């Protein structure tokens, strides 16, 4: 089984979010970048397929050279090879077309992406890829098993879970649940050394549609101070009379 894991390079979850260039760009100064958490769950599940079902695992990222440390980290965790599309990933449609092109050329059986990237929260790249490639797609995927060309997945739905039967080739939008938090791997020294030798191919983007553009950013308005109630009676009164939520 050939697996492609799509890795997006995002600000660490603790990052302070600021904007620059007259509020038209995300300010990366002092920001630590990491593998998108949803992709890390997917990559870890891919490692399971590699170890238990002899899968080969490639990763792909659309981004400039500055994303390579994050890609090397994925290689250190155990991916076999990496492909970088040398372009700034500003639009989900554009990114999906680049990745779909890689997926097609490489004839991957399984494509693992995340439910959403935690930076721009598009939640669209795997779904658009599925429609461009016309292959099966399971979103908010919280469990995945593959047997030959059959696949069984669990998907999170509002208020519960749904079991889905499908087949390869398949693309998923994964999230926590694909593996447990405790299964996540911190690269060890040997992994880091080996990652330096692994193949990282850089390709130029194909012509593609740029469907959207962020023209300006703002931050949420500053919050007023909390009102502390000295008793539950007072709290209930405030919620009823002032906040009008009960």
């Amino acid at each position: 089984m050939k697996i492609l894991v799509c890795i997006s390079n995002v600000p660490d979850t603790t990052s302070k979010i600021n904007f620059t260039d007259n509020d038209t760009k995300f300010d990366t100064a002092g920001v630590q970048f990491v593998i998108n958490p949803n992709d890390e769950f997917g990559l870890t599940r891919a490692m399971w397929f590699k170890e238990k079902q002899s899968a080969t695992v490639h990763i792909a990222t659309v981004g400039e050279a500055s994303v390579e440390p994050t890609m090397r980290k994925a290689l250190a965790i155990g991916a076999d090879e990496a492909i970088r599309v040398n372009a700034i990933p500003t639009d989900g449609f554009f990114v999906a077309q680049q990745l779909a092109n890689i997926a097609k050329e490489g004839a991957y059986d399984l494509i693992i992406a995340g439910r959403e990237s935690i930076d721009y929260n598009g939640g669209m790249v795997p779904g658009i890829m599925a429609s461009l490639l016309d292959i099966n797609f399971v979103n908010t995927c919280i469990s995945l098993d593959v047997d030959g060309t059959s696949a069984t997945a669990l998907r999170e739905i509002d208020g519960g879970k749904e079991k889905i039967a499908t087949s390869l080739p398949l693309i998923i939008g994964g999230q926590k649940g694909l593996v447990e938090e405790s299964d996540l791997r911190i690269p060890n020294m040997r992994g880091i050394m080996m990652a330096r030798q692994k193949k990282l191919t850089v390709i130029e983007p194909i012509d593609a549609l740029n469907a959207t553009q962020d023209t300006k950013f703002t931050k949420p308005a500053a919050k007023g101070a909390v009102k502390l109630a000295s008793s539950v009676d007072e709290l209930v009164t405030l919620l009823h009379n002032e906040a009008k939520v009960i």
Partner: protein
Amino acid sequence: MSVLVYTESENGKFKKNAFEVASYAAEVAKQMGTTATAVSFNATENESLGTYGISKVLNISNDTLKTFNAKAYANSIHQAVEKEGAKVIILSSSTDTKYLAPLLAGYLKAGYVPNVVAAPESTSPFTVKRTAFSNKGFAFSEISTDVKIIGVSNNSFGIHENGTTAAVEAFDAAVSDADFATKSVEIDKVVGKATIADADIVVSAGRGMKGPENWGMIEELAEVLGAATACSKPVSDLGWRPHGEHVGQTGKPVASNLYIAIGISGAIQHLAGVSSSKVKVVINSDPEAPFFKAADYGIVGDAFEVVPQLIEKLKEFKAQNA
């Protein structure tokens, strides 16, 4: 050239988000000088959408579409878009709709902007305001494609009455076996209980509750309020509560009217996922807990004392206001 909106239903009944997206579609239609058409699947009270400004409903009645299937639904909506010649499509932010939205975007070569929180800033160029960076910022996104898809954030635009009469038409969308190559085989869903996605009130608890055996009071509080229950990430990682209850940046987003956080410290990743809730109440024994800085109301105190008192008080309050 109407605006098309997908109004979601469950067992024939429209979900609350259907009325919100219908209201949003009516507003966009007004801005563009056109009308809003809804597409629904096996819904029974289609006329009711007129109340929210929808002038036409294309209702698809098809037993094979009783259970949600992203591809079959996306293909059907695609056909409705073509029939209406719609240029703007309005969707909700439910889990199912976020599953079909990118498929539809792919079929239509349409720019899709999710998590939109307000009516368009302008329709030419087409610019909408949406949340980004897990609610730590907003982006103004311009869509440049001919067909545009907007995903409206839950509980952001609100439900607005805008009385028109809706003409209901049966619409026969073609579905094929290929649409069901991903097949639902089993659904495991809590019935009769508010879900985190739909609830007006969410009661959430964290590691401060000490252990799963203490969740009885959390569930009781939720029941008194008609609320959904949720939890912080470590609580689900520890197996105290199911993963589906984990809210925050890497869990489910919460956009309720009231969010009550009990024994949750207020880590940045937790706040990121719940900050769209309108009113936030914190119960925490540590006055320095970061959540107090992000909350509207709070009680500094031991949850094991405060929560039972709150349940009693709310029961009294309910009895008086019933």
